[in-house]
């Protein structure tokens, strides 16, 4: 995801979609709105690919080979799911993806916070030049760097290991930029007072600055999470052994091997989507704010 467009120097306030605005919600809530006639078809159109995936995942192979399609399966085939788990190392792929994502998110939060704070608050030799260099990488599309990065990762002996997916992604310009902008918007007096009381730079960052930065840290975490969990091209280049694959890569090999077993393919796909959907439902506020921020500040 190239976050290149118009890097503006406006930070601080994070946009959030309010569930309830200041307007009186009672006035129109219980009156029928003509907008339902727009919104219902729209919602239907957005959901139909997923609903159809779920229905198919519960059908028999014979039911999937039928035209016109059978919309209601005669009986629900839960065993499609267990069969997928027997046929492919899905648990392994899930675990790999989880490990990579957790480590990459944690690395970004730590390293981008440290660097973001240095760029925001500490005057050190070469700071501005280095910061501009970091920002420049935001504008470079991935395909420009992927060939040399592949060679570097190979030299490090990381090809076909989870390390290939983790190490190059432990810190990113986007997180550094977002955190630096946020840190600069905080009142500096608190930090100065703590410094006078003898706190170290590290102490100030961890005890004063970061506790005030919950929302922006959540934004970095959400964007990094989505990006890492769903990444496809880089794992495709660096991972060959099925045991080291991530979910996205595993799904493509599963699809290649079970092209005509649509019911199994759909069951596998449902399982790959469920973790992200679950997280999206429980942390909706953070996801939406994170995405809105990535856009406006991008």
């Amino acid at each position, binding site marked *: 995801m190239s976050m290149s467009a118009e890097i503006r120097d406006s930070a601080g306030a994070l*946009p959030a979609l309010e569930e309830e605005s200041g307007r009186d919600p009672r006035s129109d809530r219980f009156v029928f709105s003509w907008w339902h006639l727009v919104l219902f078809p729209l*919602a239907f159109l957005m959901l139909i690919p997923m609903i159809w995936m779920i229905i198919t995942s519960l059908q028999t192979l014979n039911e999937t080979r039928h035209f016109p399609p059978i919309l209601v399966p005669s009986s629900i085939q839960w065993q499609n799911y267990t069969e997928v788990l027997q046929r492919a190392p899905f648990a392994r792929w899930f675990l790999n993806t989880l490990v990579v994502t957790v480590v990459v998110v944690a690395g970004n939060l730590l390293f981008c916070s440290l660097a973001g704070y240095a760029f925001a608050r500490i005057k050190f030799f070469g700071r501005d030049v280095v910061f501009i260099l970091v920002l420049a990488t935001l504008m470079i599309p991935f395909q420009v760097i992927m060939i*040399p990065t592949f060679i570097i990762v190979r030299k490090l002996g990381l090809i076909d290991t989870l390390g290939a997916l983790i190490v190059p992604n432990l810190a990113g310009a986007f997180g550094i930029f977002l955190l630096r902008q946020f840190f600069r918007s905080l009142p500096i007096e608190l930090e100065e007072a703590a410094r006078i009381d003898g706190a170290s730079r590290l102490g100030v960052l961890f005890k004063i600055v970061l506790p005030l930065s919950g929302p922006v840290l959540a934004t970095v975490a959400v964007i990094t999470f989505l990006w890492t969990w769903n990444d496809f091209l880089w794992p495709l280049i660096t991972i060959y052994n099925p045991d080291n694959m991530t979910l996205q890569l595993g*799904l493509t090999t599963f699809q290649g091997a079970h092209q005509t077993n649509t019911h199994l393919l759909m069951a596998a796909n449902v399982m790959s989507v469920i973790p*992200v959907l679950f997280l999206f439902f429980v942390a909706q506020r953070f996801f939406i704010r994170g995405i809105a921020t990535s856009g406006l500040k991008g």
Partner: protein
Amino acid sequence: MSVSVRRIMRSDHVAGWAFAFPAVALIVVFGIVPILWSALMSFQKTNLLSTPEWIGLDNYRALPKDPLFKTSMVHAFIYAALFVPLSVGGGLFAAVALNRHIRGIRFYRLAVFVPVVVSTIATSIMFLWLFDPNFGLANWLLGLVGLGPFGFFTSSDGALYSIIAMTVWGWIGFDAIIYLAALQGVPNELLEAAQLDGARSWSIFRNITLPLLGPATLFLVVFSTINAIQVFDEIYFLTKGGPGTATYVPVLYLFKLAFEQGIAGYAAAIAYVLLVAILILTVIQLWVGKRMVYYAS
């Protein structure tokens, strides 16, 4: 330790570098170095294993004579020309519809936003089935209104457009989130004042809301164009560029060159041409945007 050394150790230079170093080192090794290396490679003949051979501008000279490169670029521009207006326009439409307090609005919003978190591969698998030429739901539904049947991803005329339809579905939610955040920043007083003056709702939207959404629109157009020119995952998964070369796009082409055929120098040249194309498009869009977009504050 002498006093001066201690002072340096405690100075901001050391602290600043110590804080910035891990992230900066990673970005230099996996960002800056590859950018320069890739530029170097574009002047070389190399297959990722052997010693590279310097060939000057030969890679770039070969590009205009390469029909597959030309086809790929044409497809990328067709893709962008349709994907950008459809996804941004669709996102605006969805956001305006979702920006109200009616019963069920949480459900409607969720339905529109959900595809944002679904991966490109999962989306492709869903649509591969939805658009199945023989048993697909899409052919059945279109057949009910007298259209089709279509080959979708398997037809050389329709594959690129089918992929566009799918990626628009995948991105409308993202655009809607950005627009909805922008819509909620439109001051109520402005809308109410216009209403009191007797303005019709279409004219309020056209003359007040839409101009205030300018920055969001500019961002989305630039961002979506960059994404469109770089489309890869869906095409690699669904068609591998086929049928024939009907869905060849630049990133797929350079991926195949570098990692399947070992023609890495030429692939690097394509990557740089693509980078320049993206930069030119972005600059044009920002330049036009600057003239058209009104920034409050």
